């Protein structure tokens, strides 16, 4: 039997339930699976836990009322115009549960999950208010030296969602720029949805960045990271980031933006 993991974009997210946790690949405004993020914003799911090195992805889902809990290593447009207005407002008003982590603590929860370990020991977070606002994160004593370390609990997301330059129908994929932590994310999650700029014939991708054994669904999505960048296929569309940033400053203007841009008028 021939395996073909390609599905349509709406089909790809139909397993998402209220309360699902989704880990989104990429970095700030770079190589985010925005086409899939927009389809989640259009869907009826709610109360999501979103985990991300976040930019517009998290902010858009917050603005669309989809997010119950945000877990992040940062929330930033990383030099692109505009900013995460919906997220900032939600954090200020306390309407979204916020679990701010350091960048490395964010990574370690998936390192632990990917190796099926209960936690990952690190010095990161020691003495900081990251531990104050995340009281469930405990410390552990090194049985050899007695040193106290932070024990970041494993997190296995229901879904990881990433975007790549090229994939075959099995999910062997090539990322041309920085893979960021996507290679780890796909190993940590229960299910993985991957969108790709281009679908290539099987056998064409020999130097893969992502192996097909980690991938459950492949979605063909040209310009799938728009308005963010996907090196080297396209850069950031600054005009659209500015438009987004302006809209996100205010709930009413963002509602209009969602209707025009995300829900297609």
């Amino acid at each position: 039997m021939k395996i073909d993991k390609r599905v349509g974009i709406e089909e790809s997210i139909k397993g998402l339930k209220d309360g699902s946790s989704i880990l989104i690949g990429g970095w700030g405004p770079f190589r985010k699976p925005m086409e899939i993020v927009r389809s989640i914003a259009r869907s009826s799911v709610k109360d999501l836990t979103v985990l991300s090195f976040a930019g517009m992805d998290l902010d858009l889902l917050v603005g669309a009322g989809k997010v119950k809990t945000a877990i992040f290593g940062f929330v930033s447009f990383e030099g692109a115009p505009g900013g995460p207005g919906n997220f900032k407002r939600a954090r200020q008003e306390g309407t979204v549960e916020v679990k701010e982590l350091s960048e490395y603590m964010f990574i370690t929860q998936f390192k632990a999950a990917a190796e099926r370990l209960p936690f990952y020991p690190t010095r990161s977070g020691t003495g900081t208010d990251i531990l104050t606002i995340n009281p469930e994160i405990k410390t552990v004593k090194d049985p050899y030296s007695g040193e106290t370390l932070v024990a970041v609990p494993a997190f296995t997301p229901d879904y990881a969602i990433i975007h790549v330059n090229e994939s075959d129908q099995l999910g062997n994929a090539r990322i041309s720029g920085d893979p960021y932590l996507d290679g780890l994310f796909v190993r940590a999650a229960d299910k993985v949805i991957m969108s790709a700029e281009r679908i290539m014939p099987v056998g064409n991708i020999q130097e893969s960045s992502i192996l097909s054994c980690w991938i459950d669904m492949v979605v063909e999505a040209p310009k799938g990271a728009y308005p963010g960048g996907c090196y080297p296929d396209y850069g950031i569309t600054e005009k659209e980031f500015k438009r987004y940033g302006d809209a996100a400053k205010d709930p009413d203007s963002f509602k209009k933006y969602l209707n025009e841009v995300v829900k297609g008028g």
Partner: protein
Amino acid sequence: MADYTFNEQVVCEIARSFGPDDDFVFSSTSNCGLVGGVLAKELYAPRLHLSMGAKGKSAFLNNVRYPFIVGAPPERFIETLMNMEEIYNIAGRGKWCILMQPVQVDKFGYMNLSLAGDMKKPSAVFVGSRGVPDNTVNAPRIMYFVPGHAARVFVDKVDFISGLGYGKERKEGTIKWGAPTKIITNLCVMDFEDGTGRVRLKSIHTGITLEQVKENTGFDLVHASPVPETAAPSDEELHMIREVIDPVGISRLDFLRGEDYKRVLSEIMRGTTYQSLYSKK
């Protein structure tokens, strides 16, 4: 009148923070940091690695002449490309030195990059603590850059501890690495008093008074009397900055806001993009 500007003095102070044994990666979030890093590598710390984004990845840069105004750095400055994951490897092993720009710093060097006001209902939200909790336990050394020295930045107690200063973690010896060693602002240079770990005023930039520094600092500063003046740039440093590394003066941009920033940036950009600089050579 001094024959140098304060941004040049800041750049030299950054460069002089490094020496011949510094075999680690230096990264920064500012133009002064970039120019200062290149100057350090040229004059004081040849083993220093300079990191910056290029070609959709991070990169080590070498032989940088003329910092980046517009677009990606030219090929000839790229020593090698690396993935983000490698940066965490470098940081974990203690070879990532970053010049960070804090939102707040307190009198023991604890720093905040997360939020202002109450942790549960903040009055302002910033990017998050990011790599600060990682860097302040791992880095070979940490430096802070504050282009707008103000009492709202230098506070008695930070609203959110993103990074460790000199407190019980270091006194008890549980955390050995990542200590802040220097804070460079538009007014002065600060370091930390031995024993107490308190922020100490080390030197004041040319033309700035002790009163100005005190008025703009929200806690009592430890300092010698009289406070020394920040060392003047040498002729060699000024030559390198003005003729080789930063002839258009991008280090000015860190201290400008609003219309002033736009004006100087457009001056710099006119005819000084990489394409225009290198296409004719």
